[in-house]
């Protein structure tokens, strides 16, 4: 096996192997578990950096493992795959650090970390998948391996949430599988196209069928991407521990849905066919409705994590909206938001976790004056929330700028209107949190959950949100730099829309 084939497998194995080992470890082996976790996570980041350099210089990494005749398991590192892989790898490392501190002393840690690693493997598998079968395989693995994490606390509430979660994602997967099988029966075996669509050889008389397949696939992926009305599972699944909400429900799972839609539009159907079929306009409208609906619902929540969950519902559809509009600018906006939203949202969830873990604060109405008790944590929150409102120079602004340009360029000024109204709504539900934290004061003593520490909370709970908040600033301020997601996304858009 060549080096080019080994790298994708190594990236996959760097989390899968530690994960499987950890599942069988006893809960008491804290040190071994932590080492396995940290080595795996660090190794993955290093491998991904290597892959980024290689792909930038034009090396093609591809591993083919024969499975069903004509339908091999195909792992490929193209620029779009790497975008998602690097996001997952970087955030996995930070979340692992966070989770080790967060779950200190709680039961079932081996189960947790084992499945956590399997989830991340599934996510990078989805990212690197080179054909639909591979994508579906890892997509299913992700659905199943997240279930134990959602029900981690095993309370009535979390079991209930787990049931709803499974029902939603599995029905989505069933629809997706049907669509994939139907598509292959029409088109035969194919891989994701590097540029343009993979279905150019399909007879034009199948176009109505293709439209139905397109909608079914988008609908199947849309469950995980939490498109309205298939979004219920997301706020309910927020009963999971904070690291799970942070990495999975803000980044991996929902992003897997969005990423699946990106692959469907760009590399299966190709943007030309997708737009000429007309399915993308329907998708754009659904995304627009989701953006506004999610923001309005977020406005009504007092529970911080639920507010963030509805905000995720809304922000995810920024990506979907960008994907469904024709033209390179919208593509840039959508894909760069894939990264930016992940980093901003994970910061917010880290902070929500810190507030709950340190001071037992769960509700927005309890946050008066917390900024002065936990200044670093709340500074991170403030930065990320301003990013969500697309205030420059933060990462969210770069996304909104290109999404806005893309909307206007595609002749859809209503989409720009949706984005601007959503920014205003974002301000309406984030500013009160910031206002309470910094401009109000608390009358009574804090409910201290953790022993007093040198910092405002456990050091390892503090470092991850501070790093991601810095990233929110850096990725926006230096968006035009050589190693920014924006530059990388421009390469992808150039592939999709060659000039």
């Amino acid at each position, binding site marked *: 096996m060549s080096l080019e084939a080994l790298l994708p497998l190594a990236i996959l194995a760097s989390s899968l192997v530690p994960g499987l080992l950890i599942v069988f470890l006893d809960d008491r082996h804290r040190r071994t578990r932590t080492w396995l976790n940290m080595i795996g996570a660090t190794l993955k980041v290093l491998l991904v950096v290597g892959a980024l350099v290689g792909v930038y210089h034009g090396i093609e990494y591809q591993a083919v493992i024969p499975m069903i005749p004509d339908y091999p398991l195909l792992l490929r590192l193209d620029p779009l795959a790497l975008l998602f892989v690097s996001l997952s790898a970087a955030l996995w490392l930070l979340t692992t650090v966070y989770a080790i501190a967060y779950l200190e002393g709680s039961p079932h840690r081996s189960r947790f970390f084992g499945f956590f690693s399997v989830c991340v493997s599934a996510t990078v598998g989805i990212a690197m998948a080179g054909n639909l079968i591979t994508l579906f395989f890892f997509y299913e693995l992700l659905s199943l391996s997240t279930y134990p994490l959602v029900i981690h606390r095993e309370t009535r509430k979390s079991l209930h949430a787990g*049931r709803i979660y499974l*029902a939603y994602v599995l029905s989505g997967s069933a629809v997706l599988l049907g669509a994939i099988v139907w598509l292959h029966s029409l088109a035969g075996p194919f891989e994701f196209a590097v540029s343009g669509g993979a279905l150019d050889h399909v007879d034009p008389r199948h176009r109505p069928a293709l439209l139905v397949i397109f909608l079914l696939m988008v609908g199947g992926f849309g469950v995980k991407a939490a498109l309205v009305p*298939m979004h219920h599972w997301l706020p309910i699944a927020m009963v999971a521990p904070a690291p799970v909400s942070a990495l999975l429900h803000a980044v991996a799972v929902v992003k897997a849905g969005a990423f699946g839609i990106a692959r469907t539009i760009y590399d299966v159907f190709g943007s030309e066919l997708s737009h000429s079929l007309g399915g993308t306009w329907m998708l754009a409208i659904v995304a627009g409705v989701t953006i506004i609906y999610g923001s309005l619902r977020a406005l009504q929540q007092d529970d911080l994590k639920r507010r963030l969950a509805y905000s995720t519902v809304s922000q995810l559809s920024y990506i979907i909206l960008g994907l469904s509009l024709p033209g390179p600018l919208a593509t840039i906006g959508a894909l760069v938001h894939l990264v930016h939203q992940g980093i901003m949202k994970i910061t917010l969830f880290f902070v929500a976790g810190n507030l709950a873990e340190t001071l037992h604060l769960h509700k927005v109405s309890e946050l008066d004056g917390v900024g002065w008790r936990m200044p670093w944590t709340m500074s991170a929150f403030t930065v990320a929330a301003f990013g969500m409102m697309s205030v*420059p120079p933060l990462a969210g602004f770069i996304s909104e700028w290109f999404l806005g*340009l893309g909307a*206007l360029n595609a002749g859809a000024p209503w989409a720009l209107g949706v984005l*601007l109204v959503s920014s*205003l709504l974002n301000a309406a539900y984030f500013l009160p949190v910031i206002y309470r934290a910094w401009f109000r004061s608390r009358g009574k003593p804090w409910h201290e959950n953790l022993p007093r520490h040198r910092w405002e909370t456990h050091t390892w709970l503090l470092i991850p949100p501070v790093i991601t908040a810095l990233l929110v600033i850096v990725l926006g301020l230096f968006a035009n730099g050589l190693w920014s997601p924006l530059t990388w996304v421009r390469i992808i858009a150039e592939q999709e829309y060659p000039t």
Partner: protein
Amino acid sequence: MTIALALLLPLLAAALMMWRSARAYVLAFTPWIPLAALPVAVAPPATVEIDFLLLGMRFGLEPWSQVLLAGTALLWTCAGWALRLSGTVTTPRLLAWHLSLAGNLGAILAMDAPGFYLFFALTSLAAYGILVNTRRARRAGWLYLVVALLGELLLLAGLLLLTLEVTGPITAALLLFGLGAKLGILPLHFPLPPAYAATDAAGAAVFGGGLTLAAVAGWLRFLPGVQPQPELGEYALIAGLATAFAAALAGMLQRNSRALLGYSTISQMGILTAGLGLTLASPTPIAAAPLAFFAVHHGLNKAALLLGTGSSGRLVFAGLVLLSLALAGVPLSSGAVAKAWLESMAAAPALADTAHRWLPFTSTATALLMAKFLWLTRKAQHSGLQAPFLALALLALIAPWAGIYYLHPSPGELIKFGAAIWPLVIAAAILAIGWPLRNWLGRWHLPPGDLAVLDKPVVQALRKLLGFWRGRELPRLPRLYRLAPERLEQQLRTLPVTGLALFALLLAFAVALSL
């Protein structure tokens, strides 16, 4: 290099606020930090490109923006001095002060659209922290923030259109209103008077001076990018003139001197909008210099007046009188020159008529408004120190002359004694007639921010609307999960079963692979 220094110094000051021990030093240096922009303003204009920042930033100055920058730096210096002397500066407020300062300078220096948007948003959002320094200011802060955010969004839409080279009337209108939100353009004017009234003299000076200059910089930077807009220009001229008169009238019905000055800003910016309308309508490129000069004259003057509301004494009152006269355009004052220059821009005959007929009367309105202002401040007792006010008043009376000699080829043409005096004579006559009625007139009162009184009903209506819907989710998808047998799940939950099941799955997969 000097540009970087001018922008980084306030940002550095803001960053230093993280260390408790550094805060006293930051406060001590607050007045001097804006002065770093002066060398940039007087140096020969140049452009700097910084490719890796944001979406590729470009900084630079033209003659008109040099004057804007110099005015901004001077006014922040004096306001900063007053802030330092005020003795009650909280940490968040000082932080907001320096962030807003950096944004203010940057908005004048930035030449690219995203860069301008960045600095404008910075100055505009950070100004909230300057404004809300007491509990009393919360409502004003809330009003300010809502309109500021709305303005930002309109501005963003306008800049996006401009980036795509769509240069029609929609783009122009979005820019006009998006930036105009800071200038009290109707109907986005209502936060200004409550904001001035709620904050202290130093904060109000920044609102009345600095923020207006940043917004004007945006108008002059980006409106030349749109095509000539005869209809929009005519609308702006008429709406601007109407605003100038209506706001002066509303100002006369105020009892708080700073709220009155808020209306004065709305009125003066109405005059500026009228001037902008004249040049928008003309087929030649927008004449930036006269508008910039008017803005600087007004910015310095208004900031000085607002600082003056924080101190008292004979010298202060004399200064306020002189400033008021200059604002009303008494002959040989910067106000008279600024208005004469605005009026001279009327090129299209139809609009020129309107402009020549009505612009002089704005001086009458201003004179009456300032008379009421002086009446309100005549017996004021404030503990604030006089020095910053006197310095800024002196600058406001003298510095514009340097600007006019720099910008205008032959400033002598603009000094028209006769044309400037008669509107003031009318004002004096009206005052003489109205004097006996002053007690009766004094009974009339308008709450600061007129439309702002609607805030509570509007919020309540919105709350009701959302409350009506509160808790109601869309109906759920069919509750399939009920079918999952509870017992199986209980078993699945235990670690060995789940782990082994997964392991078996992977094993089966591995076997399938090897086949």
